[in-house]
C-alpha cells in the first residue's frame, strides 16, 4: 500500500466515501448529497482518492461514476483474503434461506 493511499484513508470523510462506494458506483453529486460538506470539498476528496489509486472513474452516458478500485488498496491478495470469507458467509445465508423444493 502506497504512502499516498495511507494519507488518503487518513481522513474520515474519505473513509466514508470509500465505504459508500463499496455499495456500488456513484456519481459525484450523489456522493456529495450524503455529506454535510460542500460539493467542492467532496470533489477534492475524490481527487485525492483517485490520485492514490483507491477509486476509479468510468463514464456511463452523461454521468461519471466513481467506484472502488479493488486492487488499489493494498493489492489483490489482501482484497481477496477479505472478500472470500465474506462472500462465503453470504453464500451460506443465500443457500440456507432459499425455498426448499
Amino acid at each position: 500500500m502506497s504512502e499516498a493511499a495511507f494519507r488518503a484513508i487518513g481522513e474520515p470523510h474519505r473513509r466514508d466515501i470509500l465505504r459508500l462506494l463499496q455499495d456500488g458506483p456513484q456519481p459525484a453529486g450523489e456522493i456529495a448529497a450524503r455529506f454535510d460538506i460542500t460539493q467542492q470539498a467532496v470533489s477534492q476528496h475524490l481527487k485525492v482518492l483517485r490520485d492514490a489509486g483507491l477509486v476509479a472513474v468510468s463514464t456511463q452516458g452523461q454521468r461519471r461514476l466513481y467506484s472502488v478500485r479493488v486492487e488499489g488498496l493494498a493489492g489483490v491478495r489482501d482484497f481477496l483474503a477479505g472478500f472470500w470469507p465474506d462472500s462465503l458467509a453470504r453464500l451460506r445465508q443465500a443457500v440456507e434461506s432459499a425455498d426448499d423444493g
Partner: protein
Amino acid sequence: MTAEPVRAWIRIDAPPERVWEFFTRPEAIVRWMGEFAVLEPRPGGEFTVNVKGAPVRGRYLELDPPHRLLLSWGYAGSRELPPGASTVEVRLVRDGAGTRVHLEHRDLPEEETPGHAEGWTHYLARLAAAGTGDPGPDPGMRPVRRAAQVVAESAEG
C-alpha cells in the same frame, strides 16, 4: 512469482446439489455475489459477475457437478489482475445433510509492499462488512451495517 493462494471454507446446511446451483445459475449467484451475472456453466463458458461495481471476468474451466468447479478470475480493466489471470477452485464436500465448501484462489500476483498487509486487511474487512447488507438471522455472522448508515452516523457524530 505468485503469492500464496487465498483459502476459505464454510459449512452450509444444504446438499452439494443445491449449493452447486449458486455457482452456476445467474439468478442464484447474484443472491450472494454481485448484482449482475452472465454464466455459461460449461468448459470455456463465460463467467461474468459485477460485484459492487467491480467487473469480475473469467471462464469456467472445469466442471464436475456437484463436486468441483474451476474458474478463471480477473477484473476488466485491471492491470494487476486482468481477466483470466488467476484461478478459483471450488470443492463441495458432502458432510452429513450439509456441504463443506472449500475455496482456493490461486495464481495471484505477489504483493509489491507486503509490510502493511495486516493493518489494511483489517480495515478492508470493515469496509466489506459495511457493504454486505442485511445480516439475516444467522447468529454466526457478524452484525453489519449499510454504508449509508455508516455515513449518516459519521455525519451526526
